[in-house]
Every structure is written in structure tokens, then in C-alpha cells.
């Protein structure tokens, strides 16, 4: 698709149209939890056998454009991460639609990594899980290891990941995740990992990724890092889009709301 920034027309990359997301939780219901009650529900084929519904996102609509960096803010449990997953196409919406240009990706490979394997094998496994080819991983391997700084205190990359300290493991995870280039990139609280030195390095890497990516979404509770990186902010509260606008305006309202 042609990038026509010069002509002034803005090219949408992500369109959310009245998105609703409902989680179904098994066994979340209190009371009536006995075996006979469960059996009778199954026999009667009632709609929700012991299933509780959580309406996490309620009718959110917005359009994101190429070159934007969008922050998502809101109190815990307001549906920020859930919305990101819906944009990535990982959580199907209950109703409404999300349209995207290309394949948005969530920055995170934690789930693909295995603690019992060496760091070395996890780099390869994580890269493959993100859809990189073996050649791409081979090219970037040294870069990933150096970036993580795992080998600064000895040859740790050949040890199983369960032997790493939590900070080391988080650094390696971030390094693997940030190794790939993305069209639409979504970052969920990734800046909070590692020591001060590593945080600086990862912020720089995120700015780099932003340059390469078409659109960046960032979830954070740190208003400063949102101010530093984003030019537009979506404020979610109880699953509803409460405000959508330039960073300064929205953050000011949000700070008033949270009583800062």
C-alpha cells in the first residue's frame, strides 16, 4: 500500500468497530457447585453449565493511522490487554469487528519458551514461534544474546532458563521478542523489566521498532513513559472507551480521575 503521508491523507492501519469481548470462565460460579447440580445442568443442556461470563470490553470503536503511537491507559482490569489481544486477532470478539492492515503482533513470546531448556534453544524456539525463519534467527542470534546481556557475567546462555534470576529471564524474553520487525506492534507493559541499564536499552529499542513499524500500541501504567512515546491516548475504563485524544489532554483528565 502506498504511504501517502505527503499528500495529507491519513492511511488507517487498524479499525475497531463496536468490539465486544466476553470471557467465559469454567467453574467460576459460587454455590450450586455440587456434582449432582453439574450433572443436572449437563443433562438439561442449559445454556451455561457452571460458566460465568465476564464482559471485558464493551463496544469500543476507534481508527488508528499509519505512523501513530497510541497509548492505552486505564485502571487494572479495565480491558486494555484484552483489547490488544483482540486487535492482534488472538481473542475473537463476541460481536463487532477489527480490521487490520497486515498481521499485528503482540510483543511477547513468554508462552513459547520453556524453563527446562537452555537459553540458546529458547532463542531459536522463540524466534520460530514468532514466525522467523531459521536463517533469520541465525543472523540475529548473536545480536539477541548481546542485547540481553545474559553472557556479561559468564556463559549463561548454555544453561537451562530455570537457573536464571527473574531479571535475567525477563531480559532474555524481551530480547527475543524485540528481535522481529512488525507492521503493527503492540507492547504490553514491556518497559518494566530488568535493571536501569537494561530499561534504557529497551526504551531505545522500542523507539527503533516504532520507526520500522506502521503503528505502535503501548499499554502502560507509567504515565511518563506514555508521554515520552505516544502522541495519542485511548483511555479505557470498565471496558468502555472513556476518552480518545492527544496525549496531554487525556492524561490530564486521567490524572484528575485517579486523584493525583
Amino acid at each position, binding site marked *: 500500500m502506498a504511504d501517502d503521508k505527503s499528500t495529507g491523507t491519513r492511511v*488507517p492501519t487498524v479499525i475497531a468497530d463496536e468490539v465486544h469481548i466476553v470471557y467465559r470462565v469454567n467453574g467460576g460460579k459460587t454455590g450450586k457447585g455440587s456434582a449432582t447440580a453439574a450433572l443436572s445442568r449437563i443433562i438439561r443442556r442449559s445454556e451455561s453449565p457452571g460458566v460465568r461470563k465476564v464482559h471485558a470490553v464493551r463496544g469500543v470503536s476507534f481508527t488508528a493511522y499509519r505512523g501513530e503511537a497510541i497509548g492505552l491507559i486505564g485502571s487494572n482490569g479495565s480491558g486494555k490487554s484484552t483489547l490488544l489481544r483482540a486487535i492482534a486477532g488472538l481473542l475473537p470478539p463476541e460481536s463487532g469487528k477489527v480490521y487490520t492492515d497486515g498481521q499485528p503482533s503482540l510483543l511477547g513470546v513468554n508462552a513459547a519458551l520453556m524453563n527446562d531448556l537452555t537459553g540458546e534453544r529458547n532463542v531459536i524456539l522463540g524466534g520460530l514461534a514468532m514466525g522467523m525463519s531459521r536463517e533469520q534467527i541465525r543472523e540475529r542470534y548473536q545480536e539477541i544474546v548481546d542485547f540481553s546481556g545474559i553472557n556479561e557475567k559468564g556463559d549463561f546462555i548454555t544453561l*537451562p532458563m530455570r537457573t536464571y534470576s527473574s531479571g535475567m529471564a525477563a531480559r532474555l524474553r524481551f530480547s527475543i521478542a524485540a528481535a522481529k520487525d512488525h507492521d503493527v506492534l503492540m507492547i504490553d507493559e514491556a518497559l518494566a523489566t530488568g535493571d536501569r541499564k537494561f530499561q534504557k536499552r529497551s526504551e531505545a529499542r522500542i523507539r527503533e521498532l516504532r520507526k520500522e513499524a506502521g503503528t505502535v500500541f503501548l499499554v502502560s501504567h507509567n504515565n511518563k513513559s506514555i508521554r515520552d512515546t505516544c502522541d495519542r491516548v485511548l483511555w479505557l475504563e470498565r471496558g468502555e472507551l472513556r476518552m480518545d485524544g492527544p496525549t496531554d489532554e487525556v492524561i490530564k483528565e486521567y490524572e484528575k480521575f485517579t486523584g493525583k
Partner: protein
Amino acid sequence: MTAPPSPDDGLSPAELAAKYGLSVSGARPGLAEYVRQLWGRRHFILAFSQAKLTAQYSQAKLGQLWQVATPLLNALVYFLIFGLILKADRGMSREVYVPFLVTGVFVFTFTQNSVMAGVRAISGNLGLVRALHFPRASLPVSFSLQQLQQLLFSMVVLFVVAMSCGSYPQLSWLLIVPVLTLQFLFNSGLALVMARLGSRTPDLAQLMPFVMRTWMYASGVMFSIPVMLKDHPGWIADILQWNPAAIYMDLMRFALIDGYGSENLPPHVWAVALGWAVLVAAGGFVYFWKAEERYGRG
């Protein structure tokens, strides 16, 4: 946001999406495209299965030695109970019965573990499904592949057992390759079906061990079906012998064991083996693909 007025203002979201060629996020690809995507992830599927296999014994002191020791101990236990105590070897010499039993246990375990891993392929890996993009069929296929590699370790034990009972390598051992290929296809299809069922109803993980044990006893793992059922109507034995687990077991025994000739095999055995493999693999794949966009919900 204070945007300059643009020609797109009056458009509905769907029209806007169509104008700029955006596609619905997380929509299910067509079947041919899905197969292409899955093929593109073959390196991930292989690496994931190998990683799971290695991770299994990485905390044990003997490490990867357990890959071989576990099936060996398994075979010993079955031999102790069915060979020495229950004497289920009716009409078979010790030289035939021991490899007969061990082959049965290993080949059935391959199917059994594929089914059990299939049930939990999606429901046990929700974190992965909700974090990354890949054709979801990668998971059940990868788990079957893990079981296939596990079986290859067991085959080492099986070769030793066969040779110690007087069946030496010969040309018919080459038949192991097509047998394992067909059984792998069958198991993958079954794992795909179980993965879709298990993603909706995780309770299946509790139920399946009983179903699988029933299937095991009905498939003649530790006894010969025609010999055991000779006092019953013939159709019962026919049905049991034509069931896929029994077919693959019998073919493997035929390939490996000297004293286990073609007279023990049901008619058209290769055609049936191929039929089961193609039918279940293709059917399971389509069945799994039909719900592709719903995995990971809620």
C-alpha cells in the same frame, strides 16, 4: 482528535476498511491457504516437539537415558503380569509372545499418548494461543510428532527385545517405515479431533484415560484376538481386528517377528491401514480447521 477534514469522513468502518484493503483480524483462512501456512511453520512444529521431548527428562539425573529406560520398564511390567502371572500367551511360543507383547504396548502407547496430548494441545497451551500467531493445527501435530520421536526411542528397545528372542533384522523390517508413517497420519488426525473437542470441553482430559484403556484391552495388545475369541461369534473378532489400533499393531508385529506370519493378519490389511490413515488425517484436519478462529476464546 483534531484531524483535517478528509474524504473518508462519511464512511462507515467497514467501508473504510474495504477502501484501504484492511482485512478482518483473526479471520479463518481458506483451507488451501491454511495448509500453506502450516507448511510454513514446519520448523516451529519440529523444534517445539523436540523441545517438549527434551524438557521432559531434563531435571532427572539420568537425563535423556530415560527416553529408553521408560519404555523398557514398561515392557518389563507388562511381561511380568501378562506373560508370567496371567499366561495370556495362549498358543504362542515364548519367542513370539515376548516381542508380540512389547510391540503391542509400544505401538498402542503411541496412539494413546497422541490422543491424550491432543486433548490438552489447545486447552493446556492457552497462553501460547493467546500470545502468538500461528496456525493452531501446529500444536496437535507437534504433539503427535513428539510421540513419534518418543516411539523411535522405544523402537531401539523393541529391536533388542526382538533380537534376543530370535527375530533378526531382515528385509521385512523395512515395512516398519510405512507402518509408522500411516500410524503417524492416523494419530495426528485423531489428535486434531481431540484438540478441538478438548478446547471446548477440557473435562475430556479426565474422561479419556478410561476410554483409551478400554480401547487398549479391546485391541489385543497382550493377547491374540482370533485365539482369545474363538468361542464367540466370528464378527466380534472381525470388528476388533479391523480397528485401527489393532491393524497397526499387527502390521508392526508382522514386520518384526519371525514366527508371526501373514496368517495372523485380516484380509486387505494394507488397504485398511491406508484407509484409516487418510480418512482420519484428512477428516481431523478439516474438522480442526473449521473452528480455527475460535481457539483461545474465553
